[in-house]
Structure formats: structure tokens, C-alpha cells
């Protein structure tokens, strides 16, 4: 009997200890290095041709390889070769790019391959992957990056998208060399080859899995997906991933600003360092925050707006409270993107109208709405006063930003707004109905109510401003793309640090269903866009960019904008310098976790 009691005690003790270790390692084998990341939305697809948002891009970049990548630590952002051996060899006329890819890189083992063994990644895979965007059957969303840019690519699509048909401007010269011939210079080309859209996909996998590829990646990235659903995705280390020791100095390490992260510990080691990478998709900020502060769940979070005042002791400079500083690593930075609203100029009630007088009055109406919008209060309400309000569509993060630009378009003036309405002959009786699309989230709804409240103040009757709710962000995105809403309220994350990436949002030929949701068409703007699109960065190009920016402001097309300051927190045992912007998903392969770190429940 006594033995039995002792045996039971021993079993319970062992079990409890085991459970504790299990708990401390997020439910995985305690011997594994596990990192649990958190994102506020789930990816729309894991297929690179549909990696149209930041969430999909994060995931795709960890399962697949791209030719180029952004350096892990360099700020401002810098491009580096990834699967490419080196930077491209570019012809003198800037029209021909030769890119050599690394030899001996293999896809993960998968039944799609002969004998289930991942074959070598070859140049032809890149050609195939770009072609997919132009194949109507694929419903790819990244074609706009290369449309009208590569010799023969658009014609290939028009002639039936036969993958065996060679394209003059997109060829594999040999097994490991890619040749790209451009119609005209495209200085941003290399940036586009860092995006998830350009990731290399093996043809066998597409032909084997078809649409299932959207949830079953087969790539050569640092991780392979083991499970995926709407709540989380779990990766395990790709054991076949190429061995490339990290040089943190080459990656842009700055000990003064990044020393606190402990990234020096990865110097000389080959990523990925994690055995398991789990990304939890937690839309509710309260749930995400609770999971993070609990201590044994997600190890990273963006700080929700409602928590900012609780975790900061100072907003200028941004300083965490001592309690937060003791428990977590923190980094704050301005996003590489911005939030803005724009009128859909295809709606004759607000935009272009066959009647010149109505067009004139519409412009006055749009200008009045802009003057009625209170960016300062929007910043205070939803971004804790930490965002940067700026006029126009060139955000502060890009080098072409003009800090001297007039702030007329971002300063609220109710009397001026009323004057503009009166000048246009607008009264409470004849103002057109404005349908404002939102998702069903609380914040989206509050955006709408705040907007309506401000317009009421300038004399726009509240019953003329209608809400139209969409179940998901995907649904409202479709409405924007289909040009069914007169007003667009959205955010834009830059794909690369060049103002071209925001200016293209207002380029006429990019109208719906392209990225120009405002359907803005201005001859001078479009000519300047075409002119600058072949120019390398220079003061002259910056000046032209700024001229285009001014055109958008003067035409009162956009109510813009604000760049949010993101505050990120991560657990102290995580060695990382997180980024959800341009580096995005690339940083996850450099994440390491200190083992044996005691992690206890720690609510705040």
C-alpha cells in the first residue's frame, strides 16, 4: 500500500512537471525551440499569386523563396540578394536584367515530386511563377507589378497563356540564370522581386494540388507548413534550407538602436533557428493582448490602441513604463504606409461629371469634405496621438516626402468647409447621398460615425451619409475593386520604400479593378507617372513626384492621410527585431528563442 502511495505521488509529480514544461513550451516538445507570433488577421491565401495583403505576404515569405529580400536590420530599408547569387547584371540601357540563382537549393520533400523528394530550384521555376500571374485561370493578383513592363508577357496572356510557350522578355538562359527584358526601364523591378507575389513555385505542386495550393504550400523557404486553419498556421523548420551564416553587420545591425534585442547572438549562425514557428491569427485586440500578457501563449504583439496609455510613461519620446520595460522588449516606429480616404471619381455625384458646372461644384464639395475632416482628432481617437498626419499621398517614410508641403488639406476648418459648400451652391437639400462602406468591426463603424459627425458639423445632413456594412475586409475590397462605392477608406502598406508605390494608387490606367480605387484620371499626373516610372532615384524625380502629389491635393480627390506609429512588444526570451512592414515576413527566419527561459503567467 505504501509503495502504491509513493508510486502515485511520483506519477503525479512527474506528470505535473511534464505538464509544466509542456505549458512553458507552448504545448510542444520542451526540447524544441518554439516561437508563437501573432497577427491581427489571417492570410487570404498561401498561394503566392494571391498574396495580396500583408498577412498573406508574411506567411508566403516563410514557406517560399524570393530572388531578393530586405535586409533584416537595415533602416532605411535595403535590398539584398536572397535566392539570387548577387544583384542583377543590368544592361546599359537599363532594359535587360540577368539574375543568377543559387545552385543546390531544394524544395521541401512533398508527394508532388517524383519519389516525394523535393527537387532543385531552377530558373525555369521563376519564369513559371511569374507567368502564373498572367494566367487568367489562376486569378492572380500581382500582375499589375509587371503588366506592360516585360517584353512579350502581356502578349503571352492574350495568346492563351500556354506555359510551354516561350516569352522573349522572360526566359531561363540556363538552369540557374534568368533573363528579364523590359519594355522600358523599371527601376522598381528589383523591389517587386522581394514580394511574396514573385516567390518561386514548383510547377509539379501547382499541377498536383491546383486550388489546394492556397492552403498547402510547397516551397523552398526556411519553414514548411504542418498545419493551417483560420486561427493559426504552424511551421516546422525546413531541414533542407540552405546553410547561410548571418552577418548582422551586413544585415544593417545598429548596436545603439538594436542592441537591446540581443540579435548579436545569431551572428555567424545559419537560420532558421526555430524548430517550430506558430502564427496565431487573433483579430480581437483584447484577446491578442491577453494572450500576449498571459506569458505562455503568443510571444509578440502590436500594442492595441486602448493599451497605449497603460504601457507608456511618455509619448515623446515613446518610453515604456518600468513594468513593461522589465517584462518585454519594445520597439516603436512609423509604419511604412498610411491611412487615407478617397472619393471614387467615377461617381458623377462626387467626381467626374459630363456637366462642367457640376464637375466644378463636385470639386468644391470634395474640398469641403476635406476641410471638415479632423485628422488631429482621428489621430487622438484611434492612434493615441502618435500617428504622423501629413498632406497628400507621399508618406513620411519614403525619401520623397516633402515636410514643407502646405498643410491646408489636413487642417480642419469648419467655416471654410461651409464657405466651399455655399460657393458650390450646396445646401442641406441638394447634397448627394454618400454611401460609406465599412466592415462590421467596431473600429470601422466608429470611423464612419466620426466621419458622419464631422460632416454634420459642416452642414451635411446625417441622413445623407449612409453606412454599408461588409462582412469581411475581402468583401469590401471587392466592392472597391468593382467600383461600387463612392467613397473609399483604406490603408496602404508600402511594398517597397519608393513613393512610386503610393503614386500608382492614383495613376489613371490603374483604375478599377486595379489599384486606383479612386479612379482618378488626370492627364498631367499620368504623364508624369509614366515619365518618372523609368527614372532612377534623383532630386529631379523627387520633384516630379511632389508635383504629382500636389495635383492629387489640388483636385481634392483624397482625404489624406496619416502614418501610424506602431508599438511592438515581444517576450524577453525572444531574440528578434520584429517588423510588420517592408521586411515583413522575412524577419521570422532570424527569430531565435532562448531555451530554459522560465516563463511564468504574468498578467498586467
Amino acid at each position, binding site marked *: 500500500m505504501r509503495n502504491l502511495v509513493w508510486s502515485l505521488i511520483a506519477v503525479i509529480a512527474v506528470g505535473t512537471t511534464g505538464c509544466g514544461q509542456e505549458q512553458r513550451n507552448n504545448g510542444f516538445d520542451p526540447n524544441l525551440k518554439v516561437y508563437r507570433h501573432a497577427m491581427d488577421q489571417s492570410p487570404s491565401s498561401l498561394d503566392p499569386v494571391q498574396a495580396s495583403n500583408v498577412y498573406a505576404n508574411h506567411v508566403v515569405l516563410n514557406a517560399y523563396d524570393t530572388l531578393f529580400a530586405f535586409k533584416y536590420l537595415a533602416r532605411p530599408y535595403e535590398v539584398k540578394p536572397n535566392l539570387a547569387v548577387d544583384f542583377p547584371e543590368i544592361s546599359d540601357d537599363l532594359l535587360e536584367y540577368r539574375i543568377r540563382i543559387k545552385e543546390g537549393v531544394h524544395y521541401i520533400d512533398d508527394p508532388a515530386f517524383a519519389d516525394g523528394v523535393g527537387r532543385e530550384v531552377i530558373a525555369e521555376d521563376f519564369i513559371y511563377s511569374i507567368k502564373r500571374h498572367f494566367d487568367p485561370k489562376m486569378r492572380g493578383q500581382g500582375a499589375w507589378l509587371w503588366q506592360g513592363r516585360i517584353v512579350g508577357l502581356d502578349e503571352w496572356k492574350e495568346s492563351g497563356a500556354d506555359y510551354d510557350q516561350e516569352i522573349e522578355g522572360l526566359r531561363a538562359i540556363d538552369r540557374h540564370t534568368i533573363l528579364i527584358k523590359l519594355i522600358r526601364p523599371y527601376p522598381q523591378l528589383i523591389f517587386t522581386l522581394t514580394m511574396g507575389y514573385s516567390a518561386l513555385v514548383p510547377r509539379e505542386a501547382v499541377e498536383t494540388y491546383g486550388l489546394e495550393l492556397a492552403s498547402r504550400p510547397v516551397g523552398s523557404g526556411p519553414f514548411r507548413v504542418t498545419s493551417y486553419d483560420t486561427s493559426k498556421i504552424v511551421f516546422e523548420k525546413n531541414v533542407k534550407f540552405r546553410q547561410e551564416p548571418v552577418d548582422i553587420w551586413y544585415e544593417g545591425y545598429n548596436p545603439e538602436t538594436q542592441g537591446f534585442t540581443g540579435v548579436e547572438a545569431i551572428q555567424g549562425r545559419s537560420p532558421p533557428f526555430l524548430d517550430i514557428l506558430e502564427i496565431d491569427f487573433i483579430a480581437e485586440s483584447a484577446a491578442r493582448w491577453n494572450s500576449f500578457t498571459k506569458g505562455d501563449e503568443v510571444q509578440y504583439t502590436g500594442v492595441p490602441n486602448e493599451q497605449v496609455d497603460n504601457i507608456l510613461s511618455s509619448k515623446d519620446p515613446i518610453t515604456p513604463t518600468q513594468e513593461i520595460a522589465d517584462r518585454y522588449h519594445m520597439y516603436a516606429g512609423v509604419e511604412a504606409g498610411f491611412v487615407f480616404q478617397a472619393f471614387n471619381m467615377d461617381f458623377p455625384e462626387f467626381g467626374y461629371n459630363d456637366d462642367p458646372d457640376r464637375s466644378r461644384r463636385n470639386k468644391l464639395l470634395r474640398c469641403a469634405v476635406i476641410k471638415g475632416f479632423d485628422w488631429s482628432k482621428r489621430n487622438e481617437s484611434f492612434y493615441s496621438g502618435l500617428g504622423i498626419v501629413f498632406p497628400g499621398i507621399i508618406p513620411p517614410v519614403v525619401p520623397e516626402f516633402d515636410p514643407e508641403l502646405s498643410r491646408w488639406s489636413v487642417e480642419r476648418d469648419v467655416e471654410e468647409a461651409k464657405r466651399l459648400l455655399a460657393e458650390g451652391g450646396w445646401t442641406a437639400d441638394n447634397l448627394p447621398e454618400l454611401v460609406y462602406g465599412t466592415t462590421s468591426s467596431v473600429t470601422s463603424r466608429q470611423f464612419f460615425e466620426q466621419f458622419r*459627425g464631422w460632416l454634420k458639423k459642416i452642414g451635411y445632413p446625417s441622413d445623407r451619409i449612409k453606412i454599408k456594412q461588409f462582412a469581411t475586409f475581402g468583401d469590401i475590397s471587392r466592392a472597391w475593386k468593382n467600383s461600387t462605392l463612392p467613397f473609399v477608406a483604406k490603408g496602404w502598406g508600402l511594398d517597397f520604400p519608393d513613393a512610386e508605390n503610393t503614386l500608382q494608387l492614383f495613376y489613371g490606367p490603374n483604375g478599377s479593378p486595379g489599384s486606383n480605387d479612386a479612379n482618378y484620371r488626370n492627364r498631367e499626373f499620368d504623364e508624369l507617372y509614366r515619365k518618372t516610372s523609368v527614372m532612377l532615384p534623383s532630386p529631379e524625380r523627387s520633384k516630379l513626384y511632389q508635383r504629382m502629389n500636389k495635383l492629387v491635393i489640388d483636385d481634392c480627390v483624397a482625404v489624406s492621410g496619416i502614418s501610424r506609429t506602431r508599438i511592438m512588444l515581444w517576450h524577453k526570451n525572444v531574440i528578434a527585431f520584429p517588423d510588420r512592414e517592408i521586411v515583413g515576413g522575412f524577419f521570422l527566419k532570424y527569430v531565435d528563442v532562448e531555451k530554459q527561459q522560465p516563463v511564468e503567467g504574468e498578467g498586467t
Partner: protein
Amino acid sequence: MSSVAPEPVVDETVVDDGSAHRESIWAKTVYKLRRDRLGMVGLSVVLLYFIVAIGVWLGIWATEWGDVEGPKWAPMSAEYWFGTNIIGQDVFARAIYSTKTAFEVGLVVAVLSTIIGALLGALAGFFSGTWIDEIILWLKGVLDSIPFYLFVAAVAFALSGNPYAMHIAMVSTFWTTTGRLVRGEVIKLKNFEFVEAARAIGVPQVVIIFRHILPNTFHILLVQATIVFVAAIKSEVILSFLGLGVQDGVSWGLMIAESTQEVLAGFFNNFVWASVFLFGLVMAFNMFSDALQDALDPRKVASE
């Protein structure tokens, strides 16, 4: 003590020959209701809410519910009695305005689902055992078997942002209980002598159902309507909280949804006041509903 025959409850005035004064069932109900203190308190509170809702509807008060000129998350003060929310809206005005939303939803759903439940229940009961009854029972079974919130989400999706998706979904499901109760009552009533007499003198079936039988289920409909009214208000709050309910306007559910972000930052105005208003109305309506049920119970009324 004598046994009481289950007589029809409404047609007593019809059979009254005037030879002796007989108090009507409604007079008895009112008498009994007035003696139920809790019920009268409930009714008073409901009437108070109703007056508030009428005031909102007439634009007498809470007209500034959408204004956003106040400070962010202001505490309770003389200027902002219940404080403000994240965009500076007056929580008091929004809580008051939400009363109108609650009554709108409650009345629309209660009236429509009661009418549909009464009609289909009466038809199913009168034609019990026939294919009409089978179809109506099948329909009830199907609707009852679908989880309510899943059904609302499906309706909302199918109607693509229609502001009445929530009402349609609620009416579509709430009538079934009423229908089932009415069916049972009609099955009982259709064998009564007054129905047989009507049949014997050739009164058409439609007239028998809707003129002679259905009025005798009125006590069920009245009680059921109050229950549906409360259920609709509660459902609206839950649906709005989930983003499936009120689209243009404000409701206690939306206020509680807003509060999910605020409470973590230490601001409770939306949560507390929306909950208080909701609790007050639901509690009062339940008290009134219980009292009405007791007062209209034929056995209890008859035994008075």
C-alpha cells in the same frame, strides 16, 4: 369546490343573455393585473421606457447621439452625464437613443412573429393531421433545427447588408413557438360546441378559423408577444455585439461591443450604462409578462 369546464374564454360576452351581470374575462384580467404589484411596477417601467422611445422618435431628446465633438473617454460630469466614448460621443444620449432602437426591433419582431405564428398555428391546428399541418410542422421543425445565430448570419449574408436582415431572421424563427402554442389551443377549441354549431349552420371554414377560433387564442398571443418582445431585444443586443445587428444607428448591443476595447483601457461608461438600460427594460418586461400570463391564465381567471 367545483370543477370548472374548459370553456372558450372570449365568447362569453356572446353567450351572455343579459339576464345576469357577468364580468368579462378582460375585466377580470385587468383587475388581477392591477393587484399584482410586481407586474404593475414592471408595466410602469416599460411605459417609462416607451415614453423615452417616443420622445426619441419625435426628436424631442437624444438628437445629438451622433455628435462627435466631445473629448475622448470623458468621465461622468454635469456636461456628459454618462461620460463620452472614444470618439467623443455622449454616452447618455446614445443610451437614450438606443431605447428607440430596442422598441423598434421589439415591436416589429413581436408583432410580425405573433401574426405569422397565429395564422400558421391556427391553420395547422384546424387542419391537424392533414398535409397542411404536415407542411407547417415540417417548416417549424426545419427552422427550429438551425442554430439561431448561424441562421441570422446566413440571412445577413444572403441579404447582403440589408438593414432588416436581423428583423427578417428573428421573425423567421420566433414565430414557431407561437405557432406551436396556437396550434395546440386550436386543436382543443375546434372540437368545442360553438365551433360545431358554426359548422352545422354552414359557416365557411375561413370564417370559423379567423372569426371564431383565433380570437379565443388571444390570451396566448398576448403573453407570447411580450415574451418575443423581450427575446427580440436581447437578441438584437447580442447580434449587434457580434456585428450582425443594427447597421445604421446605435443600440445597447453596439455600445457593449464598443466597450470591449474600452474596458481594457479602464473606461466602463458604455458597458455599464448600456447594461443598466438593457437590464432595466428586460427585467421590467419580464415582470410584466409574468403578471400578464398569470392574469390571463383561463383557469386562474375562471377560478377568481
